[in-house]
């Protein structure tokens, strides 16, 4: 499986923001079946993020978080990128953000220099100002294009589902030079404790992930597939191989896993093995044969 010329040994990629700080963990994830890993979003300077509670679980394998892009800053993270890169056949994607197009581009450039195979732009974190970029097609173009001009490795753009029409944002990113789209980031959401009458997360509004958001992710991948010609990496609520196949049929070429790691590393191997067993049983040789299959039925009825 390859995206933008990068060869992945498996179509499963670690989503940004989950476990993405320790190189040893990234290597373990590869051993369990991840073909790529996306780091926590890294910015120009060290940021403490929001206070706890910043991640909680809701019912039915659904989670709410507002971490506030806490990160050690690119200069402290460069050696971690190099360390993650020491693993053979693991695609290393560094998620980046900044407060201006130039800051984005600088962080992306430094990450590429440190060894990143690809850059993922976070213009969509729902509990941070960067989300104002990902809801505006013009801003998206400006930011993506500035980063595109600064780096030579593949560039992925992670999109927010918190928009009226995701296709406009996706098309802007494509026009600006993105090599792939990642859909979706978390869904803007809120949980209130009825006893204390206050939002539970310290930041109040957060991003919803996990099982509840899968149908939203599937829908956005489905509509993007018809509107752009670059590959789409599906993300949101994958807990089993059937979810991966659903994303492929909607139009994804690969997927990202995050919240399912609540069940430990073993779930990766389970999804991986079942996925390939499915492909064998149904005589598919490559993932590209599955991508977008649901669209063949769209003119029916």
């Amino acid at each position, binding site marked *: 499986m390859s995206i933008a010329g990068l060869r992945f040994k498996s179509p499963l990629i670690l989503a940004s923001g*989950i*476990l*993405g*700080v*320790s*190189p*040893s*963990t990234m*290597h*373990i994830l590869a051993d369990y079946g991840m073909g790529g890993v996306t780091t*926590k979003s890294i910015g120009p300077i*060290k*940021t*403490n*993020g929001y*206070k*706890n*509670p*910043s*991640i*909680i*679980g*809701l*019912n039915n*394998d659904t*989670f709410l*978080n507002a*971490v506030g892009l*806490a*990160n*050690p*800053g690119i200069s*402290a993270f460069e050696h971690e990128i190099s360390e993650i890169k020491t693993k053979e056949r693991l695609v290393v994607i560094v998620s980046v953000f900044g407060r201006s197009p130039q800051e984005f581009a600088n962080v992306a450039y430094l990450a590429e220099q440190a060894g990143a195979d690809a850059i993922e732009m976070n213009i969509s974190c729902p509990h941070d100002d960067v989300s104002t970029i990902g809801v505006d097609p013009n801003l998206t173009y400006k930011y993506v294009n500035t980063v595109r001009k600064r780096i030579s490795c593949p560039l992925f753009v992670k999109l927010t589902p918190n928009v009226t029409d995701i296709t406009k944002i996706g098309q802007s990113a494509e026009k600006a030079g993105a090599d792939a789209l990642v859909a979706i980031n978390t869904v803007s959401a809120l*949980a209130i*404790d*009825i*006893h*204390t009458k*206050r939002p*539970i997360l*310290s930041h109040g509004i957060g991003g919803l992930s996990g099982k509840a958001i899968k149908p939203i992710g599937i829908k956005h991948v489905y509509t993007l597939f018809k509107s752009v010609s670059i590959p789409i990496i599906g993300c949101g609520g994958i807990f089993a191989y059937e979810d991966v196949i659903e994303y492929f049929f909607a139009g994804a070429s690969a997927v990202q896993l*995050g*919240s399912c*790691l*609540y*069940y*430990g590393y073993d779930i990766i191997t389970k999804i991986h093995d079942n996925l390939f067993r499915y492909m064998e049983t149904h005589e598919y040789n490559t993932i590209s044969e599955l991508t977008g299959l649901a669209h063949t039925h769209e003119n029916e009825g």
Partner: protein
Amino acid sequence: MSLKKTAHTDKPFSTPIKSITRETPDSITIFVNFVIDGKKPIIKPGQFIMVWIPGIDEVPMAVSYALENGDIGFTVKDVGEATHSLHNLEIGDIIGIRGPYGNGYQVREGYSVIVGGGIGMASVKLLIDLVQKKMTHHYSVIVGARTKKELLYLPELEKNCPKSQLFVCTDDGSYENKGFVTELLKEILPWIKERSGAQKITIYACGPEIMLKKILLFCNSNNIELEASLERYMRCGFGLCGLCIVDPLGIKICQNGPVLTSAILNELDDFGRFHRDETGEKIRIDSHYE
């Protein structure tokens, strides 16, 4: 993925404070009821909960009391903003509890030496209760603190623990033996060996990481197993944020720990040396804890 038969939640369970016990001049134990939908919690010694102080913070706390009626208690030392605000709460004030989290101590056959340094006693408290209930279980307890006033649970320990099996030390010598628990451990090793006979000895310990590191070295050179409880910054408590991971094994303190065995501790470069702060940056422990 299965429904848990005992109380467990990843969303803070709001519950009013039922009682507060003064333990030392700077430590209190807060009791709350943790029965969710009629299900009582089953807390293994060494497990922890995340405690939400509305409007302030949420912090991991070892469970030190687990009562028949589903009440649980955790001991808080006033060391920072979150713990200070817990000290200012009153009976009836609502806090949020989620968990329980972590693996806890694996009580093994043989002779147990339970070691608690300072507030670390809070983590081994339920373990002491457990070995005391098992009458056949051979054990001794070592309690250490900087000064007499900071010794946790001392009255209860002196009541329930046979005098010959309880060892107390203070850094300043204000009560019983003067010095660190590691020194006391060395001193009483021949006695422990005699008491344990042919039985395998396991040390269960919680306290400052520097102390735990010294105990590991002691255990290694005396063919003794160690189970030690570690502390790391964490956001979720259930294996997603990755901030509590210790390298190079990728051990998640919240899920694979907080209690780790000698075999794992010996492989951890981070043990006693590094932790990650809330940004994910690796920080030297020496500068942080001392």
